[in-house]
C-alpha cells in the first residue's frame, strides 16, 4: 500500500514538456524556431486540456516555417487553424494571408513569457462589428443640462 501511495505522489520530471508525446511530435516537424515550438505546445495544452477541443493536431507551415494547430471547438464543429506565436514577435500581413488562405477560420494566439494566452480572430474581408446592446434610454436634454452646471 505504501508503494501505491509512493507512485501516486511521484512528481513529474522537471523537463516533462520535452517528454510529452505531443511535443515530440512537434519536434519531429523540424522547425528551427524553438521558442515558437514551445509556444505551440502551450497552446496545444490549452486547447486540449482546458478548452476541451476535439481532434487537435499540429502541422508545419512551409512558407512561414512555424507550427500551426488545427482543431474543432466541439464535436462536429468546423475545423479552425490556430497560429501560436511568442508575444514579442512581429509578423507581416502576407504571413497572415498565408494562414487565411488555408481556408479555415483563423485564430492568432499570442503567448506571453508567463504563459498567458491571448486569442484573436482573423477573417478575410470586412466583418461588420456587433451593434451595441440595448435597451437604450433616451436621456433627452437632462444629460446636457447636467454637464453645463459643472464648474
Amino acid at each position: 500500500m505504501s508503494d501505491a501511495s509512493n507512485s501516486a505522489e511521484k512528481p513529474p520530471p522537471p523537463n516533462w514538456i520535452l517528454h510529452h508525446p505531443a511535443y515530440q511530435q512537434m519536434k519531429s516537424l523540424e522547425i528551427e524556431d524553438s521558442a515558437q515550438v514551445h509556444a505551440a505546445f502551450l497552446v496545444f495544452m490549452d486547447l486540449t486540456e482546458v478548452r476541451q477541443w476535439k481532434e487537435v493536431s499540429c502541422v508545419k507551415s512551409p512558407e512561414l516555417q512555424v507550427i500551426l494547430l488545427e482543431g474543432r471547438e466541439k464535436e462536429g464543429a468546423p475545423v479552425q487553424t490556430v497560429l501560436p506565436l511568442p508575444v514579442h514577435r512581429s509578423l507581416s500581413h502576407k504571413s497572415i494571408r498565408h494562414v487565411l488562405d488555408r481556408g479555415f477560420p483563423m485564430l492568432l494566439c499570442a503567448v506571453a513569457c508567463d504563459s498567458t494566452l491571448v486569442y484573436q480572430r482573423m477573417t478575410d474581408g470586412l466583418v461588420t462589428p456587433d451593434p451595441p446592446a440595448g435597451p437604450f434610454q433616451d436621456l433627452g436634454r437632462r444629460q446636457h443640462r447636467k454637464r453645463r452646471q459643472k464648474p
Partner: protein
Amino acid sequence: MDNRPSSHAVGVSLCDSAPLLWRVEDLRTVRSQGLVGALLGSLPRTPRQNVRLGRPLLLLEEEETLLRERQAAAAGYQQDGRGAELRLQVQQHQEDQQRSYEEQSVLALEDRKSALLRAMTSSHTESGAGALDGALRGRLEALDRSFTFPCSALAVQLSTARAGLSYCPEARSILRADRPIRGRDELSCDTGRYQVFTDLRGRGFYLTSAGKFGGDFLVYPGDPLRFHAHFIAICVSKNESVGLLDLLSVARLGSNVKKTVLLCSPGPDGRVLYTSLQWSGMV
C-alpha cells in the same frame, strides 16, 4: 455616387501644405461626392468649445488628391500687393482703439469717484460733516492725479454679425478659383494609403482620419452625421512587419469601442486585401 469630373471646381486654398476649403458651396460639393474632411474654424458666437466648429474645412491628403484626379479642384486666388490698403485699415483701426481708450478712461474715473463717494458717505454718517468734506475732497483730488486706466481693462467690440465670407467684395476676389489644378503624375501623398482610400470610397464608405483610435482611417457605412464608424482601417504594406503587441492593443481597443480593426494592404493588381481583426472573447 458621382465619379464624373464635377462641372463645379472647388477652390482649394493652401495654408503651408494644408488644403482648406472656405466657401459653403464648395463644402456642399465635396460632401455630395462623399468626402467629409474636418472643420477647423471657431464660431465667433460660440467660442471656447470644440464640439461645433466652422469653416475652413481641412481636407485629408487623400481627399485632395482625389479631387485633383477628378479635375474638380482649382487653386484659390493667391492675392498679393494690397499693402497700401491694408496699412490704411490698420491705421484706422489703431485710431479707433485709441479713441475708445480715451472715452473709457473718462468713464472709468467717474465710476471710481462715485464709488468712493458712496463708500465714504455710508461709512462716516456719524462723524462731523466738515471733516468728511475735507477728507473726501482730498481723496478725490488724489484720484484725479494718480488714476490710470489700464489697457488690459479696455472693452473691445468685435462685430460678429458680418454677412459671411462670400458677400464681402474683397473676400470674394480672394476666394475666386482661377487656375485649375491638373492631376499630377507624381502623387504627393502615400500611394498605399491612397489606394485603400479610393477602394473603400468606391465601395460607398465614408472615411475620416482616425488619429483618436491610432489608425489611418475611420470607415463609416454612410454619412458620419448619421452613422457610427464600423471599422478602424490601418494601412500596411503586405511585407511590412507589425509587432504582435501592437496588433493586440489595437484589436483590444477596437473591441472596446465596438469597431472592427481592418488591416488593409494594397496588392500589385490594384486590388486591396482586407483582414478583419476581432477580439476572440475566449477567456
